[in-house]
């Protein structure tokens, strides 16, 4: 079953901006799905339409088979959303924020209190339950929004840049938490500008650009589509010039670092054989850029005259 099915979705804002231009997208149930794209590509507009915060111009959206036009409330009951911008009531307490949200989904106060304890403990916010929203740090506010979105146990959780501005330690713990709830059966759609995050967490990826999907596949297959990859090699001994290895383009970064581009037709063995022959010892190696980032740049490369610039991300 599809958690989300989008057909020919169009959104034109009143100022004439076409944020979505006939977008099609399927997200299978149980998936951990990355939705990537540059700023203004249409990601936030798409999420806004799915969560009923933005009115679509044309097209069809189904959430677990519920049509957004004919069974809007059933569709909304399946979705939990963590928006890009902080949207909590700053004057309300942490506990009230989550229990109120649960009430809006039809949970009784008693059910909401029990569920709030579980969610706030999972997100390490239970000790702050009586504090007001405004007293929380940026990372805590983001975790509070995740707890709020999970209160009604949604089948589809949409996270719009949930780790923006969150420090590395909390980000890693949030990754673990998201993996756990995905493993427990919740379908997750994640948008992020941290491509390492998408590569690390998601099984499928769609890249949206200029209101259309330009790539959609399993993460592993998408990563294989890269034309070339650049590696940084750390040398044990200093060198004065880049060594010459036939067939490879090697650049000297500094006396202890080389950069080498390896295309899909080549392999790393040839590089190491050439360096070995030149008497150079490599002590470590890393990708110059995140692999997904390279593909992302390749797919969304443009000359800057495309008239892009939607109302959201």
């Amino acid at each position, binding site marked *: 079953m599809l958690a989300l099915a989008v057909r020919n979705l169009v959104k034109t804002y009143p100022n004439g901006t076409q944020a979505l231009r006939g977008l099609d997208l399927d997200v299978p149930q149980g998936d951990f799905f990355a939705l990537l794209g540059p700023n203004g590509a249409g990601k936030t507009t798409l999420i806004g339409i799915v969560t009923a915060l933005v009115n679509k111009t044309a097209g069809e959206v189904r959430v677990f088979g519920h049509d957004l036009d004919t069974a809007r409330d059933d569709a909304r009951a399946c979705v939990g959303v963590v928006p890009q911008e902080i949207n909590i*009531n700053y004057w309300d307490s942490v506990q009230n924020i989550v229990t*109120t949200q649960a009430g809006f989904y*039809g949970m009784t106060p008693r059910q909401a209190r029990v569920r709030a304890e579980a969610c706030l403990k999972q997100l390490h916010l239970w000790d702050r339950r009586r504090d007001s929203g405004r007293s929380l740090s940026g990372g805590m506010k983001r975790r509070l929004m995740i707890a709020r979105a999970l209160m009604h146990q949604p089948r589809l959780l949409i996270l719009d840049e949930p780790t923006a501005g969150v420090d590395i330690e909390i980000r890693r713990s949030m990754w673990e938490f998201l993996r756990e709830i995905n493993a427990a059966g919740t379908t997750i759609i994640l948008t992020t500008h941290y491509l390492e995050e998408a590569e690390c967490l998601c099984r499928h990826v769609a890249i949206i650009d200029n209101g259309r999907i330009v790539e959609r596949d399993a993460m592993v297959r998408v990563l294989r589509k890269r034309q070339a990859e650049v590696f940084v090699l750390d040398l044990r001994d200093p060198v004065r010039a880049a060594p010459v290895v036939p067939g490879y383009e090697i650049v000297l970064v500094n006396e202890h670092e080389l950069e080498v581009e390896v295309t899909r037709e080549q392999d790393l063995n040839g590089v190491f054989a050439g360096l070995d022959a030149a008497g150079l010892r490599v002590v470590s190696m890393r990708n110059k850029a995140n692999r997904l980032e390279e593909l992302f740049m390749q797919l969304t490369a443009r000359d800057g005259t495309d008239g892009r610039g939607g*109302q959201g991300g």
Partner: protein
Amino acid sequence: MSLRVQFIALYTLVRKEATRVFRIWLQTLMPPAVTTALYFLIFGHLIGRRIGRMGGFDYAEFIAPGLIMMQVITNAYGNVVSSFFSAKMQRHLEEMLVAPMATWTIVLGYMLGGVLRGLGVAAAVTAVALVFTRLHVAHLLVTVSVIVLTACVFALGGLINAILADNFDDVSIIPSFVLTPLSYLGGVFYSIALLPEFAQRLSLFNPILYMVNAFRYGMLGVADVGLGTAYAVIIGFAAVLFAICMVLIDRGTGIRS
């Protein structure tokens, strides 16, 4: 979604609104009480003693229903405007918009929040009035129904204002330039029988006149307008404003892109 889910959502919204009113009681309940005390002191006692009797009652007794109603109108309206508009500006209104809440649940929830604030203020102002004058209740059912219906009308008006408002100016224009003048000219401080004929006829186009007079009839048993007409005007306004709120929220006017 089932009716049970909608009632739980409605209860949640009303409880949230009521909690807000009583949490910030210094901003919501106290100012009307202080203002009303000043009205009674200045108009009721100092000036009222020179005016003498009106409609068969001491001037302070005559203006008491109007003063209570004026505060109910202002506060029912102001409660919904400030609550809904701040939720819109801080974007936590989205908590409701993403949930499976029916449009009528949202409209009814905010309306009842405004009514609760109106009744809370009415209780505070009535307590103040008792310090300065005697209060009568000639027709209890009329008194209660008119105050509740009037609070509904202005809570719904406040909701429309908040939905359509884009900035803070938009939420202050109507109270300052429409509500206050209409309240003062709606027979709070005088019987329209004192006005020239043209002004009397003009006053009949002021809906607040019907609310103040129906409430005065409930308390004192006297009014400048017929009770049936007053109920028709109040219920008619409530129904039309409720329908407008439903259409605006359903379309997402001012709240959805």
